[in-house]
């Protein structure tokens, strides 16, 4: 990718994120946009975003692929791996070579099986509150270059602000409810994937793509489309 291209992509990404913040926006769409932007504009191959459910457990709410292999790798990293470590310590955890190290053997094995060479986990934090992590997987080994790291951290910050919102910062239980909303939306999206997968006899990954495409085409939030499919007021 040329430098100009990348800069344009990043600019677009920030503009999109900023737009979503001023208008009425859906948290889940914002996060989906974020992970897709990271994968396109940065030198990484897959991206997943984990949010805390408030009890210390992390749940995957957006990822660049819905394949069960990637979802499982990130889930393992969220249970015992760099993702949960980045969250707990509230700092970036960079693993430049997944093949070199003894920590988190299950996570390393799972990541290696998918051809990942490196991973960077960036905490989503604002002041004293850490709400999740942004996890960037690369096929090559090596550290993420400075530029990309800075960009990823800036994107993570903007996303965090988007999730928490100004007004939500006033009360911690409002933060909680905003997170719960995002996590519950994810439940409905999984259910909607199942509805569509059965109805059209397609894979759950293809079902997600169809839901996402429909949401984009009709300019509706992902969660709203999913809810329509689940309560059967919508069929696509």
């Amino acid at each position, binding site marked *: 990718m040329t430098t100009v291209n990348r800069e344009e992509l990043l600019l677009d990404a920030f503009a999109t994120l900023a737009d979503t913040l001023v208008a009425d926006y859906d948290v889940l769409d914002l996060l989906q946009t974020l992970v897709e932007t990271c994968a396109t504009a940065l030198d990484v191959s897959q991206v997943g975003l984990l949010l805390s459910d408030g009890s210390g457990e992390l749940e*995957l709410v957006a990822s660049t692929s819905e394949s069960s292999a990637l*979802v499982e790798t990130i889930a393992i990293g969220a*249970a015992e791996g760099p993702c949960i470590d980045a969250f707990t310590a509230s700092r970036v955890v960079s693993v430049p070579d997944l093949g070199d190290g003894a920590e988190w053997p299950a996570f390393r094995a799972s990541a290696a099986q998918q051809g990942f060479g490196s991973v960077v986990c960036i905490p989503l934090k604002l002041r004293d509150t850490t709400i999740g992590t942004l996890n960037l997987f690369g096929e090559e080994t090596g550290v993420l270059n400075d530029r990309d790291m800075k960009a990823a951290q800036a994107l993570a910050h903007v996303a965090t602000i988007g999730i928490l919102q100004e007004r939500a910062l006033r009360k911690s239980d409002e933060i909680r409810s905003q997170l719960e909303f995002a996590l519950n939306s994810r439940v409905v999206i999984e*259910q909607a*994937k*199942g*509805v569509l997968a059965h109805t059209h006899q397609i894979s*759950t990954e293809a079902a997600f793509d169809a839901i996402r495409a429909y949401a984009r085409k009709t300019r509706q939030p992902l969660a709203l489309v999913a809810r329509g499919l*689940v309560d059967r007021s919508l069929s696509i």
Partner: protein
Amino acid sequence: MADHFDAAAAALLSLDRDAAPDAALLADALTVTGASISTLGDFLGTETVAASDDRAARLDELQFDLGQGPCWDALSAAAPVLEPDLLGAGATRWPALSDALRDPGVAAVFAFPLVLGPLRLGAVDLYSDRAAPLGPVGEEQATALAAILSRHLLRRALRAVGQDEGVDQGSRFSRRVIHQATGFVIAQLGIDPDGAHLLIQGQAFAEGRSMRDVADDIVARRLSFAASSNGFEEVR
């Protein structure tokens, strides 16, 4: 009558999870002399859960002892069984039952199955001391109340054996699969997410497997509830 029905539906829906339902409420709502609620068969065991009066309890007991009667027929057919003239024109249907109910003066019986998808839970028995049909509105209302009762009884039974944790079982990744499977069941049976989730839970319990196992089978299309032509709920 509609008021009584609404009140009964609301009371059943707000029942505490461990509480036994009130059979007298059913009898009032459906304007019959008495009502009983029982679990039947291997799944939840055969017993009377609630009876509005002695005759209703006796009606259940006789059917258990005889191994025949409307409650058994309703359950095996997963459809209502209506006998508006048990002592007259309908006396040949279950002769031993009719004989035994002549003295107590049970003149009409109506049984509604308690089912959820393929799960056979039990039946609601209604009786009248005069021969008369229940009528289409009564049938529809009884079916609706039976659907609410089915869920309540299944939840109560799962709770009693400590299997009510539902989606909280297992890892985050498991939950995704369970949510997807819930979507499959929603599409297969046309029921709501709550019922679909409960069905997976009940199925897991019936087969002595984990919800994740059952969910895996559903998502991999090794298990489908769509094939069963009867026994799913019409009430949402």
